């Protein structure tokens, strides 16, 4: 896939969101992400990371009542509004934190096929995509298996296969490494490095963020507190500490020379 | 409660199946309108919860068996009558095809008794009672408690009717089985009422918005509900009368006995009513006494529970109000 570094994959313009009880979840959030960039969104619990991610494909506000003139989120320059949800969701592959929220079919094969079926593809094409996606995540023989028999890491990979089968241009991942053992975590890292599209990852796993992403956004109390190159930002112990984070081990072992 | 294959005749199974299929089809249509694209995840999940909840044992004193949730009224209160009926239907299907718990041919009868009468009917009683009791969230729990008990009894009577049409014969009386069923279901009904009320009480404290603030109004809805509720109540009351009727010989036969005539085989409409001419020996009068006692006791227990659980809800509403409504 050729990348045009100047094309904007994602743009947020002054996005503000309140919870039903009035508490502010996102406060005037604005940033741009170029096509092919990998950005980590880090911050303490309750900072609004998941809420932010759910705005990207129109899951919030719910039900989506954003009209064209009120659009605050733009995917490939298209406003995320009620009329464009179908198109937007084709372009964004969303991986949720708990694989059991996303794996809802009786067999692996059927679950990975869910997305392509909704795209209206033929049976043969759907099955081709299912096979390719399962191979891509390293689970080629798992089609007929019952998800209940798989480990957490395998279930996470099946979810990823289900997302990749839709051939999205952008991946949005919410805490992808939670509950994964080190081997599963390494496997996931490898698969994500092979994905050439844009990636936005909300995570507490700072080493993972440092390994995968070039850029980091620090979100705290609903505001973007810092936005810059991963190495530079995450080496700033003061900044990390202020926002409930810490310098990743990788950077402690081999600090960046300024 | 689950009817096995072989107990009901194929004709009765087919008739019950036809009614159930229509009811389920209707529920699917209404649900699609109500919940749209949320229908599948919400109903499927509710069904899975009811299924899991039915496995929880509620121990009884001194008895080797335990009480269990049935969930018809619970399902209806949480997601409405259409989703409730469908959730129970799904549970019955899965139990039949995964566990062989309940027959395949008699699935139609089971769905009719527990899904349609139990959930639709139970919801109709619940909604009607709520309107009578004030149509506020606090009235939900007593209404559900009473509805749960009545719906179980109504389902029991439905089974007696189905069984009567299947096995009714001039050669023997069905009163023994009827008595057993009614006694058994009166007990189950009390358990169901208590369990449903307790669960709803818990939910009411944690997430009151799951129990909708008021039951919807609308002429058609109201009339429909009252009709269905009335049927359920009638069935429930009839359950306690069914074994009684077996004791009273028909006036005509009594006269024939007195006059010494041979009682000829007379063709009477409806197999069920043939039994009522056979007078039972005196020593079995206790079965009807026991049945009426069960009815009386059950009524007292259920109303006491309804009042008690309703009072608890009232206190919690009060604390919610003074708390500013932060009930998380």
């Amino acid at each position, binding site marked *: 896939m050729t990348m045009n570094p100047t094309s904007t994959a994602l743009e947020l313009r002054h996005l503000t969101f309140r919870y039903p009880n009035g508490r502010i979840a996102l406060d005037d959030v604005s940033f741009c992400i170029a096509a092919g960039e990998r950005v980590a969104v880090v911050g303490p619990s309750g900072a609004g990371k998941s809420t932010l991610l759910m705005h990207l494909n129109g899951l919030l506000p719910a039900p989506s009542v954003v009209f064209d003139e009120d659009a605050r989120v733009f995917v490939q320059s298209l406003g995320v509004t009620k009329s464009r949800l179908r198109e937007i969701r084709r372009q964004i592959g969303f991986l949720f934190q708990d694989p059991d929220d996303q794996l809802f079919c009786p067999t692996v094969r059927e679950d990975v096929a869910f997305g392509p079926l909704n795209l209206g593809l033929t*049976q043969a094409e759907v099955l081709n995509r299912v096979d390719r996606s399962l191979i891509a995540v390293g689970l080629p023989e798992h089609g007929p298996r019952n998800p*209940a028999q798989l480990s957490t890491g395998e279930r996470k990979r099946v979810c990823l296969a289900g997302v990749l089968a839709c051939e999205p241009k952008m991946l949005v991942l919410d805490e992808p490494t939670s509950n994964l053992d080190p081997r599963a975590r390494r496997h996931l890292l490898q698969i994500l490095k092979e994905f050439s599209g844009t990636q936005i990852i909300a995570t507490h796993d700072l080493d993972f963020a440092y390994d995968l992403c070039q850029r980091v956004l620090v979100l705290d109390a609903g505001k973007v507190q810092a936005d810059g190159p991963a190495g530079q930002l995450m080496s700033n112990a003061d900044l990390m500490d202020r926002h409930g984070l810490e310098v990743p081990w990788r950077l402690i072992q081999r600090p960046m020379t300024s | 409660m689950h009817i096995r294959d*072989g107990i009901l005749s194929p004709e009765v199974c087919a008739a019950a199946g036809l009614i159930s299929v229509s009811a389920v089809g209707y529920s699917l249509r209404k649900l699609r309108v109500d919940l749209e694209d949320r229908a599948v995840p919400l109903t499927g999940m509710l*069904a899975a919860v009811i299924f899991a909840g039915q496995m929880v044992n509620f121990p009884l004193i001194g008895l080797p068996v335990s009480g269990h949730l049935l969930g018809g009224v619970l399902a209806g209160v949480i997601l409405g009558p259409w989703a409730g009926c469908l959730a129970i239907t799904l549970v019955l299907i899965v139990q039949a095809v995964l566990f062989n718990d309940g027959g*395949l041919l008699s699935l139609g009868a089971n769905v009719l008794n527990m899904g349609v009468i139990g959930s639709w009917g139970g919801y109709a009683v619940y909604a009607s009672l709520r309107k009578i009791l004030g149509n506020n969230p606090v009235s939900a729990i007593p209404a559900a408690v009473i509805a749960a008990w009545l719906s179980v009894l109504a389902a029991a009577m439905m089974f007696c009717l189905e069984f009567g049409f299947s096995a009714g014969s001039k050669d023997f009386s069905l009163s023994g089985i009827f008595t057993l069923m009614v006694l058994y279901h009166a007990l189950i009904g009390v358990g169901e009422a208590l369990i449903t009320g307790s669960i709803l009480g818990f939910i009411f404290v944690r997430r009151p918005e799951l129990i909708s603030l008021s039951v919807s109004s609308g002429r058609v809805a109201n009339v429909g509900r009252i009709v269905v509720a009335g049927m359920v109540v009638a069935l429930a009351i009839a359950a306690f009368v069914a074994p009684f009727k077996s004791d009273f010989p028909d006036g005509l036969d009594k006269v024939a006995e007195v006059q010494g005539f041979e009682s000829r085989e007379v063709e009477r409409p409806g197999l069920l009513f043939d039994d009522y001419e056979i007078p039972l020996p005196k020593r079995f009068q206790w079965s009807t006494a026991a049945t009426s006692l069960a009815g009386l006791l059950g009524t007292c227990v259920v109303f006491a529970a309804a009042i008690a659980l309703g009072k608890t809800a009232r206190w919690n509403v009060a604390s919610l109000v003074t708390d500013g409504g932060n009930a998380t």
Partner: protein
Amino acid sequence: MPPSSTIQNSFCHRIPSNWKLGLTLTVIVLASLIPLEHWPAIGILMVIVSIALCFANVTVGYLIRRLALFLPMLLVFGLSLPLSQLDNSAAWAWTVALWLRCTVSFLAGLWMIHVLPFPELLATLLRWRCPTLLVAMLSFMYRYIFILWDELARLRHARDARDFGGGSLAMRWMGNAQLIGLLLLRAMERAERTHHAMLARGWDGSVKFLGDDPRPAQ
């Protein structure tokens, strides 16, 4: 714990799924239709079903365990008829016929659940024109039974860790009711999240199923 689809390969497993469902229903209907006087015919059905169970690799231990749970209730139910009229031979004949009918049907059902895994059953239902929305709900429910089962076990363990055994019956009832209530709350929250996951992959309410593989064999 619901049985997960253990992949078995007996002769009966290889029969087409339409036949599995159809044969079972036929046996059950036959058992119900055979009149009381011809009860040896039910005996023949019993033998046929038993042979089928052997060919399905069903172990004797499994059979005995399942029958042990089923027969007592059936016996009690059946006995309640003649016990209220001891000298009525017609009542006894009816009861014995009931026991035979129900047992044969039960065994036939047991054979079916053994040889027809749930996903295959769903495919059969679709072929038999069952409403797609209902089949989708069944499919969903089946998956979440496993998850909720684990969740219920976790809730129970958490509760048991704080239970020192002194509670009254009423307290235990309330505790169990709270268990179910908590499970319900969590499940409904999960259903909302799952709905989001479905929307994210293009779900618009119209159910589509993956059929058989139309690609030429490689």
